[in-house]
């Protein structure tokens, strides 16, 4: 990699947006080239300065109150009870129906409006998001460090016992070779400091990591899909276990895999 290419990629490099090969090449060049090295440091300084110094403009309390009123108006365009049924023309009747609809929603909407004003931090997408980051990072690491499997085997009867004694829970392992997703092996991984079983499947040139670990929450959680940096992930919880399937496979093929796994249990 030369200086011109590095110049083009260095922002993506400091933002952790490069694929592994690109990142390694930029890293190598930056370590050797004083000019590009200085560039990298200046970029990181700017980034740190932006994080520390940019003003986060907060809405004023008056504005939040106005917004709450506006949302209330959305909830109930016509106050319930103000419509006179006796002489209601069609338009008022329509309004009344709308009012009913909104009245039914009102408790939910009022709670939502309260959330805006009172407790925006109660909403915690970050915990889910940070698990997603951790799982995808684990997926990327497994590809990067050439440490895809601790036990390389397409035999589920080899992989499953391997986990016993390493994890204090049992993981069901199925080879989906007949369906086009052959088992490549298993690996012990960590997601947010929790030991997780990583089952590794292959699909053509792609790798699917299926992470399984015990859920701290009770109850099943519905299937969710998210994507980050070109990787897709599906997660769900069932029978006390978290499942995360991560891959750079296309959407449809990963979804098919997820359906296979979900059907087995």
């Amino acid at each position: 990699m030369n200086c011109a290419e590095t110049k083009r990629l260095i922002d993506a490099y400091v933002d952790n947006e490069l694929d592994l090969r690109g990142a390694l090449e930029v890293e190598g060049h930056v370590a050797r080239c004083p000019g590009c090295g200085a560039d990298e440091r200046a970029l990181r300084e700017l980034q740190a300065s932006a994080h520390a110094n940019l003003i986060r403009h907060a809405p004023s309390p008056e504005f939040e109150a106005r917004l709450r009123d506006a949302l209330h108006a959305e909830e109930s365009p016509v106050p319930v009870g103000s419509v006179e049924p006796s002489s209601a023309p069609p338009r008022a009747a329509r309004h009344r129906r709308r009012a009913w609809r909104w009245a039914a929603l009102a408790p939910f909407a009022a709670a939502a409006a309260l959330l805006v004003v009172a407790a925006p931090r109660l909403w915690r997408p970050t915990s889910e998001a940070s698990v997603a980051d951790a799982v995808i990072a684990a997926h990327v690491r497994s590809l990067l460090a050439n440490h895809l499997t601790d036990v390389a085997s397409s035999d589920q009867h080899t992989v499953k016992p391997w986990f016993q004694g390493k994890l204090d829970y049992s993981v069901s392992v199925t080879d989906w070779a007949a369906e086009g997703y052959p088992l490549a092996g298993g690996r012990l991984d960590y997601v947010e400091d929790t030991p997780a079983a990583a089952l590794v499947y292959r699909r053509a040139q792609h790798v699917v990591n299926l992470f399984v670990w015990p859920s701290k929450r009770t109850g099943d959680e519905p299937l969710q899909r998210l994507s980050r940096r070109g990787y897709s992930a599906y997660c769900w919880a069932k029978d006390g276990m978290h499942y995360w399937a991560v891959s750079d496979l296309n959407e449809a093929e990963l979804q098919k895999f997820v359906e296979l796994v979900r059907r087995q249990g």
Partner: protein
Amino acid sequence: MVLPHMRAGYNLARWLLRNDHDAEDVTQEAIVRAFRFFDGFTGDNPRAWLLTVVRNSAYTFLQQNRARELDTEFDEVLHSEPTSNGRASETPEVLVLRSAQQRVLNEAVEALPVEFREVFVLREMEGLSYKEIADVARIPIGTVMSRLSRARRQLRAAVAGREQAGSVS
């Protein structure tokens, strides 16, 4: 539910429009619209979705009221000057600015053309990935990368220039 992301939406609107009053109008319009059409939202990232709604409202506002700002030839000289219509120097936040560096950086970001400012704010303040920024701003990922890179180069030059000017005077 999208509503708790209102503050992120307001911050974005405020950075795109550069004054409180317009930011409030645009945020309110966007939030009410988002609230009305929330049923139509099926994605997995409500925060990015709300930022998209706010961003689109802000651009509509600019088109209708300040089309000149969307006319963005990236003029290195023009855009390194602090804006005259930015009200940063009047806001209460400015009174508590801790350092000259903070003021210089904020003014330099305000002086960026809006497309560059938007990418920079989404990246550094909201922590969005390039893909997410591409979705919010409806531009290709390559454009996200090049705009971010140019914005940062401009900011570095502005900050370095001010520091020099400061040391001379």
